[in-house]
């Protein structure tokens, strides 16, 4: 018998996921692997044979794994399963992932835990859509060790040419997504070729067996070089101690360290690292440990704060990009509000834009207004509150998140800050972000809203398209999560300005009031779009003076002839007939803006083209970065 020391020392454990297109033989491969390495319990082979015979099948190796009646009956894997097997060097957990497109969430659940992967491809069918999609997801999930097996070689007469064709095709794909296969092996899972031992029928192949390939993989480990990241899980006060608990996602925690908590920006010194049952108190804790610790000062820190050292803090931001996989049956759309879970932090986020939808088949990026089930996309998310995070490439554990819609997890994502700066320096200058007992500044509102409070003052002739474009722009900005509101004749004349008529003096007063109301909206952080003819330069200048920094004069431009031809409300006809006095463009002047911030030509451009121009102006000038 071995000494008890042996039992408490580490045995390296590898988690291996087996993925691939449906019916390419994943479960069969695993069943065979267990059999060939002597891992099946006694009687199991007989049980498999009997179960297969009852269903009139040849020996169905997958029955070693698939355990739901529905799985056996339909000979498919519905949910991921795990099975342990041992080689002389170590224990391996094999995760069997389903290949059906509709069970992709189960595949992701299995693959996310794995250190390495085996991608199974049917020699007859070749590379299929789930082969590619699974490979793409493996890459997104952070897997870098992958072996490809070309299965069912018996069905293609162990053809070296067929193997070469498939090898080339899959290698080309994998390399494009940044995965280099460690090895590609021709096998027959049903017959047992090249699983645990080489096969004379594949004498032309000189590579390792699958078992050898698996033994060459190593368990994933977090780099010891990464800075400390300690998300707070909870604060316990079971006795006189106030113990903060959390798991060290990276780095080392030492007694005496000064910790910075983000996003609250509070600091305190680690007084002790607590443990139950140990004789000696630990003085340090490393990556992966679930720790409890106390602070030398009683500061208010709660679940969701991210602990770090001051010298290497996480990024703070309310906006970031992400590559996501979308698992819900309903599509992701712009403007959607979701709960984001990043380590122990939960915040509400809005989908600001869908930047790229990636076709996992062709890898072609395309623009899109929605992301459908099981698709991959690059999106921009904006959060209501500041989030402490890292870019995924810098620190995987604090650079990835899940998204929850209602009660359900609907996506996973990896963070990139490309195009967005760390807001930490800015937030330092604005301590009121943390202590709201000061007067809120425009910058603080802009940080929360993702844009500056602004007045988009549309001016132009009747029929030029002011109201139409104002409404369309309002919808588009609202969908991006912006705070936006339109002021036009309809909602102003009915209440605020019900006492005003159309005489020149009343018109000037109308514009004055609209200018003041718009300025208040802008001050409150809103984007307000006004849609008034506002023909006089002097009136517009007066409106500008109410909110000089936030005012954007936008000329919605079409000549009288064009507007008269449109004449949607029939006003031009009435004016020509003399039924309306002082009609701008006919019987009253329109003073074109001399220097507008933006001119939109609605005569020669479509509404959509005009709208796009307006949106890119807002993105450029008003969005908070």
């Amino acid at each position, binding site marked *: *018998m071995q000494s008890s020391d042996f039992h408490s020392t580490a045995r390296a454990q590898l988690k291996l996921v087996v993925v691939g297109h449906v019916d390419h033989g994943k479960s069969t491969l695993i069943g065979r692997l267990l059999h060939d390495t002597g891992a099946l319990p006694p009687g199991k082979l007989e049980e498999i044979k009997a179960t297969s015979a009852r269903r009139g099948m040849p020996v169905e190796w997958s029955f070693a794994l698939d355990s739901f009646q529905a799985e056996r009956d339909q000979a498919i894997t519905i949910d991921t399963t795990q099975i342990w097997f041992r080689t002389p060097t170590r224990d391996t957990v094999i995760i069997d992932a389903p290949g059906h497109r509709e069970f992709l969430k189960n595949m992701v659940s299995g693959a996310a835990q794995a250190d390495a992967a085996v991608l199974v491809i049917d020699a007859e069918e070749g590379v299929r859509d789930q082969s590619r999609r699974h490979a793409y997801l493996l890459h997104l999930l952070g897997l870098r060790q992958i072996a490809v097996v070309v299965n069912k070689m018996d069905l293609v007469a162990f053809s070296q040419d067929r193997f070469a064709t498939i090898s080339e095709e899959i290698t080309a794909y994998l390399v494009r997504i940044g995965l280099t296969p460690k090895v590609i092996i021709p096998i027959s899972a049903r017959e047992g070729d090249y699983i645990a031992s080489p096969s004379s029928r594949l004498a032309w192949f000189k590579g390792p067996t699958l078992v050898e390939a698996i033994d060459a993989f190593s368990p994933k480990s977090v780099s010891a070089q990464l800075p400390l990241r300690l998300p707070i899980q909870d604060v316990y006060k079971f006795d006189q101690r106030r113990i903060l608990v959390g798991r060290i996602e990276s780095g080392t925690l030492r007694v005496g360290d000064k910790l910075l908590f983000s996003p609250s920006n509070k600091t305190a010194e680690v007084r002790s690292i607590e443990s139950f049952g140990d004789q000696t108190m630990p003085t340090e804790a490393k990556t992966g440990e679930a720790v409890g610790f106390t602070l030398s000062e009683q500061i208010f820190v709660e679940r969701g704060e991210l602990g770090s050292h001051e010298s290497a803090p996480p990024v703070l931001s309310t906006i970031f990009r992400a590559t996501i996989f979308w698992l819900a049956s309903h599509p992701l759309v712009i403007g959607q509000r979701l709960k984001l879970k990043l380590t122990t932090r939960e915040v509400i986020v809005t989908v600001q834009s869908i930047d790229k939808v990636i076709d996992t088949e062709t890898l072609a990026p395309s623009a899109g207004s929605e992301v459908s089930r099981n698709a991959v996309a690059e999106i921009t998310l904006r959060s209501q509150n500041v989030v402490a995070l890292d870019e995924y490439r810098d620190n995987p554990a604090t650079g990835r998140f899940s998204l929850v819609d209602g009660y359900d997890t609907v996506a996973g994502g990896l963070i990139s800050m490309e195009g967005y700066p760390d807001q930490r320096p800015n937030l330092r200058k604005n301590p009121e972000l943390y202590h709201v007992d000061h007067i809120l500044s425009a910058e603080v509102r802009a940080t929360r809203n993702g844009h500056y409070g602004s007045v988009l003052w549309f001016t132009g002739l009747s029929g030029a398209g002011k109201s139409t474009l104002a409404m369309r722009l309002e919808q588009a900005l609202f969908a991006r999560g912006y705070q936006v509101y339109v002021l036009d004749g309809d909602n102003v004349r009915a209440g605020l300005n019900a006492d005003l008529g159309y005489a020149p003096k009343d018109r000037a007063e109308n514009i004055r009031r609209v200018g003041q109301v718009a300025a208040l909206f802008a001050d409150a952080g809103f984007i307000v779009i006004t849609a008034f003819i506002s023909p006089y330069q002097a009136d517009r200048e007066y409106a500008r003076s109410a909110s000089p920094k936030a005012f954007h004069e936008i000329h919605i431009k079409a000549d009288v002839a064009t507007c008269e031809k449109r004449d949607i409300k029939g006003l031009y006809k009435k004016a020509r007939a003399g039924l309306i006095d002082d009609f701008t463009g006919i019987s009253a002047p329109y003073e074109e803006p001399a220097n507008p911030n933006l001119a939109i030509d609605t005569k020669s451009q479509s509404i959509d083209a005009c709208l796009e121009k307006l949106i890119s102006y807002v993105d450029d000038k008003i969005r908070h970065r």
Partner: protein
Amino acid sequence: MTDLDKLEAQTLYILREAYARISNLAMLWSIGKDSTALLWMVRKAFFGTIPFPLVLLDTGMELDEVYAFRDQLVTEWKLPAISEPCPPEESTDPSLPPASRAAARKTEGLKNLISRNGYQGIFLGIRRDEQAMRAKERVFSPRSIDGQWDFRDQPPEFWDQYKTDFPEGVHVRIHPILQWTELDIWRYTKREGIPIVPLYLARNGKRYRSLGEKNITFPVNSNADSIDAIIAELETTKTSERAGRAMDHEAEDSFERLRATGYM
């Protein structure tokens, strides 16, 4: 960190996640090696406090040594243990095979417990390597109001982000040692010096590898009379852990039926 350290850290993390996110929790403590090892880690996770009740689903059919072990540990560790008497076999689904019906008494007991006390989360010491159905479990596994497990449509679970949002009436089974193997549990029990029911150790060439009700659980042939010997035995054995559990072997899908309707 050794593999055992990693497994322990993962279990502590899961226990604390559940405690932070789910109100009104309870833990099933069957007094066996798995739930006792879990109990050991609960004490570590909460620094000696056990902030939820430990429930024995009591059929009155546990082996005598099991009851004696429980009483001793409850006193020594000052455990908040409660006993939930299970309804008689007549109240279970008559279409189930006999041993499964005996086991299903616990399902009924658990349903009563949950509906009476309104628990939203139940900790269970099940492991993936025990049984093929359990291998497909999630760490946080939602159950409908009548305890049904919709195993055809389980929530995605990745990057240690667990499902913690539920509609009214749904409760969640939490499995903090799902990833441990039988061998891991014994190595950990040895390393930590966790007490065990003596029935696990061989006497006269027989020992219990898994403890259940006395009418449906049987000892297996073994000479392993110490934890070291058990570990050595498990390093080489290929016999399944639940070989001595009658209900697993009555029909192709007997355990599936038990679990789908709410068994642990």
